[in-house]
């Protein structure tokens, strides 16, 4: 398993042909208390970079862009009742959706953990 990151502060953890997507701990810290998460529809086809989800916080509503293209195969239903999970565990239980990758090559353009750490250190 390996985890990749985007400039827009999403992470994707790839296992086999399925990637689990969430927002980073840095992103949840910037957003503040999250009050609502709008998730994509299971079965929908998404294109890399498209806005597929929205995270509402007390400060702002922010789009979440999918790091890869493919089909949404699962969403984190538990966030409906407990959006605060994204604040508490953005890297784990606060995941948003899972995508069946249509092009693994898209992962090459993403950052690894070290590169992302350096990226946010420069912000």
């Amino acid at each position, binding site marked *: 398993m390996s985890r990749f990151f985007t400039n827009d502060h999403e992470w994707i953890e790839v296992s086999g042909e399925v990637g689990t997507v969430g927002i980073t701990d840095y992103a949840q810290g*910037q957003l503040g*208390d999250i*009050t*609502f998460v709008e998730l994509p529809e299971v079965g929908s086809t998404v294109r890399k970079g498209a806005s597929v989800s929205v995270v*509402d916080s*007390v*400060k*702002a509503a922010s789009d979440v862009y999918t790091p890869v293209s493919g089909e949404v195969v699962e969403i984190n239903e538990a966030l409906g009742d407990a*959006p*605060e999970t994204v604040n508490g565990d953005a890297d784990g239980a606060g995941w948003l959706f899972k995508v069946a990758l249509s092009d693994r090559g898209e992962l090459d353009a993403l950052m690894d953990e070290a590169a992302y750490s350096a990226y946010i250190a420069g912000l």
Partner: protein
Amino acid sequence: MSALNPSGWQPSMGDAQGSGSELVTSSGDRGLMFEEPLSFEIGALDKCGVDMDEPGGEPVAALGAFLRKSAPDLPGLTEPETVRHYSRLSRQNYGIDLGPFPLGSCTMKHNPRLNEKLARLPGFADVHPLQPPTTVRGAFEAMDELSKWLIALTGMAAVAMSPKAGAHGELCGLLCIRAAHDHAGEARDVILVPESAHGTNPATAAFAGFKVESIPATASGRVDLAAMKAKLGPHVAGVMITNPNTCGLFEPEMKAISDTVHAVGGYVYCDGANFNAIVGKVRPGDLGIDAMHINLHKTFSTPHGGGGPGSGPVVLSEALCPFAPLPFTVRTGDGEAHLVEESNAAAIGHTLAFGRMTAFHGQMGMFTRALTYILSHGADGLQQVAEDAVLNANYVLRSCDDLLAAPFGSAGPCMHEALFSDSNLPEGFGTLDIAKGLIDEGFHPMTVYFPLVVKGAMLVEPTETESKAGLDRFIASLRHVARRALNGDETLHAAPVLAPRRRLDETLAARKPVLVWQRDPG
């Protein structure tokens, strides 16, 4: 100091927490500061404040299965109880008539009483949109006069008066753009919107059926022209630009932006929310803009927010005016202003209107107020409005930029609003603390966390309304609160402590809002 409940005491706090007094009242009220219950909690639900006949007869029979089995839970207040309830609540309200309203991106300015006086003249106040046109000549004359001023001030070809607010005006402008492309047989489905735009811009474009693509900002807070060029093409219907933008900055490349967009067949929509910063100084028509709404409730001082309905007339370029929605006024050969409707549009050659934005002609009461503001200021006075609004904002910016970070402060003067951020505050202190601290100081906070392109933004728009003495009081308070944060004063996290309510749990309010009163909660 807040005039309301200076101690900040509430009944739920008991006597221990900082009331500053040992005295506990039996009522829960404190002096003449009231803890007002909900209307449902006053009087009895099974009583009615007015006498009404017992229901019966045909109307009841006609309801059939919809007839209620039991009485609805409605508050049972008498007239004096009702009057007192709302008067007591109004004492806890904060409005433009109580003090400065520094909200950036909102343009909360004084509503001159002359506007109100003229809007109450029976010939304006008592007209009905279905009256025969011959009986409302004066109202048409006033509308036409206002139209002429708006066209002259913007350097545009025509104005659609009916849109009822800024976002409604945006929709009107985009529908004109859509109609123009449809008429030319072009299928263009993308609207470009800068990152710093008002949230309504992308929302309007999406509502009008366009796809939205965003244009990044430059380091100096302006539209990145090169990035915009890269996104232009035959699929782009137009761009929406706010100028001056929501960072309080003028887009100096506006003409180049317009020319570039026109060169590929697109149109330029300008969000005129900040027109008050340039009115009488710059004509949007000279910048190549094709459509722009004007918030009469911002630039031209008509009541705003809860104080009154908005009004967002849209000025249009030569290219777009054939598509302007009905109705509008036109002065015909008889020298009088007439309303152009579906029935007579063809007679003046207006055959391509995209439709209507509203059932009737627009916000007559706001037209009267805006026209009064314009005529009482005159052309030179309106210029001074823009100059004073910009001067006041720069005065605030330069009076506080040694204590608060000013993200674009080094780029030169701002326009009508001063933008600060919390980036220089110590760890643990942020924009929210500054805003809440200002409430204790007796000021309504500025706009916070907007625009989104600046982290921890604080946007202050003093407008031309405030005197230097008034600005100095606000600046002194803002500096005091900023110093508390810079000094690591932990008590600031509790602010406001002197207001009728302490810091609210905004997260709980957003996650578990209680929106409906229930007879037996839980």
